[in-house]
């Protein structure tokens, strides 16, 4: 499909940029590793002081960290750079060039700037999820005396679907936030709220007081992309719930598309 070819080209171009700044890329990877170390130390401290956190065991929290890092990586490698580029292009008028290119403008705005070195974070995130699951399985085995499988196929499928729809919801929120710039031009900090609340995805939503839980589940749905998929993996959710969440993901994407279209029309003075 043409869209894939475009993404391929974007990746190639951004890889070139990364290679041109080789040492920077290396330093970035090292710093990323450092933060991983800090996060793991954090988890270690928590579990040296308690057995379970809000009903979640250490293995599950490691997996949750993996899911969080996955979401974070998608944000950091695609969304934040795209935001920067978009805000600049609105300010200096180069957005015009994007709008008259014969490809979907939202697609171009979202994917033209991909921070390539973050891709390795993907492998790391998956690794964390797997390691966490193994840890949980071991714990369970030592408790019940039987060898449990790491997880069921259904849970895994549910997990993947939920990660995808969670990511879709966050993406849609981002689209709406940046589209606001079409109406309120000086809205530079449009996505900061998203960035800010993202950190809460490290821990299961059940840890938070109800008011915060509501914010991160319904308003800025970080929990939809982190806690909910993990719940799916643990087998906590019914098939119906999984389908509902999938629907939420798709619906939010459709809403986002509409808002974007309306924004572009506003920008080009269609209504006036």
């Amino acid at each position, binding site marked *: 499909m043409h869209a894939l070819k475009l993404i391929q080209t974007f990746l190639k171009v951004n890889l070139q940029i990364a290679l041109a700044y080789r*040492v920077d890329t290396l330093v970035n990877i090292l710093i990323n590793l450092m933060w991983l170390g800090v996060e793991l130390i954090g988890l270690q*401290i928590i579990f040296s002081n*308690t057995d379970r956190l809000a009903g979640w065991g250490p293995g599950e929290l490691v997996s949750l960290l993996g899911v969080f890092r996955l979401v974070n990586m998608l944000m950091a490698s695609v969304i934040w750079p795209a935001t920067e580029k978009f805000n600049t292009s609105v300010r200096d008028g180069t957005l015009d060039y994007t709008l008259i290119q014969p490809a979907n403008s939202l697609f171009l705005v979202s994917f033209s700037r991909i921070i390539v070195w973050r891709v390795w974070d993907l492998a790391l995130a998956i690794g964390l999820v797997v390691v966490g699951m193994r840890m949980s399985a071991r714990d369970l085995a030592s408790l019940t005396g039987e060898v449990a499988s790491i997880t069921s196929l259904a849970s895994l499928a549910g997990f993947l679907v939920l990660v995808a729809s969670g990511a879709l919801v966050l993406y849609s929120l981002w689209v709406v936030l940046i589209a606001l710039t079409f109406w309120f031009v000086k809205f530079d*900090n449009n996505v*900061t*709220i998203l960035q*800010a609340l993202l950190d809460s995805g490290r821990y299961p939503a059940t840890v938070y007081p109800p*008011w915060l839980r509501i914010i991160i589940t319904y308003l800025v749905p970080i929990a939809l992309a982190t806690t909910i998929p993990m719940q799916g993996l643990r087998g906590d959710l019914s098939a119906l719930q999984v389908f509902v969440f999938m629907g939420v993901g798709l619906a939010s994407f459709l809403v986002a598309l509409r808002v974007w279209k309306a924004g572009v029309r506003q920008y080009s003075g269609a209504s006036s």
Partner: protein
Amino acid sequence: MLRIYYRFWQVNWYEQWQYRANLLMYLAYWLVSPVVYLAVWTTIARSQGSVGGLTANDFVTYYLTLLIADTLTSDITVHLLAYKIQDGTLSSELLRPVHPILTNTLVNNIAFKALVFMVLVPIWLVLVLLFQPDYSMVTIQSILPAVPALMLGFGINFLLGATLTCLAFWTTRVYSITEFYFALAILFSGQFVPLQLMPPLIQRLAAYLPFQFYIYFPVSLILGRVPPETIAWKFALGLAWLAVAYALFRLIWREGLKRFSSVGA
């Protein structure tokens, strides 16, 4: 001299006021971490009564006080100075007959703090209402020593921050270096969790490092958790670190200027 500081204050305050919209967003960003940690530790404390001798209320008071302390001791020099070194704008400030960092950058930091503090107070009060801490252990005697402690914490943080930012005279990767510094601060200052809950090795290291003065020491003073016999020794350590940071800064600044003027902007 005082008049010079006053003028710098006026200029910087006005500048920061212009960017106040950005401030709200910055605040939202910065508030989330402590609230998250608060939630995590109070959940643990409630589920088992206490953690390492600390009750849920101990955690609530710790993190809420941490918000205030962090605002007062934080340093944003790298965001104020690094770009000026890199694109040469620093030159114009060097031509003035005052030290640019110890005047302009310092006052800029303070103006930012004042603005943040103004916006923080109402938000902080809302958080107090939501989390309902029991602050009965706080007295005038506990707050009084915290005031110089906070100033000490800011002084060290500022000077170390400025020293690190000056590495921009030699490298473009100064932001990565400061990121590393921030990571160390998270571990050793008590930002993540009260230092008494950290693994013993980290606690032992933290006792000698400067980071404790940014958060753990002043907060513990306010909450009355510092044994009186150690207060004097801690202050002495703090002053020693202040002297070290100052000496380091002057050294790096001198060397950095030499390099700056030899290679041009």
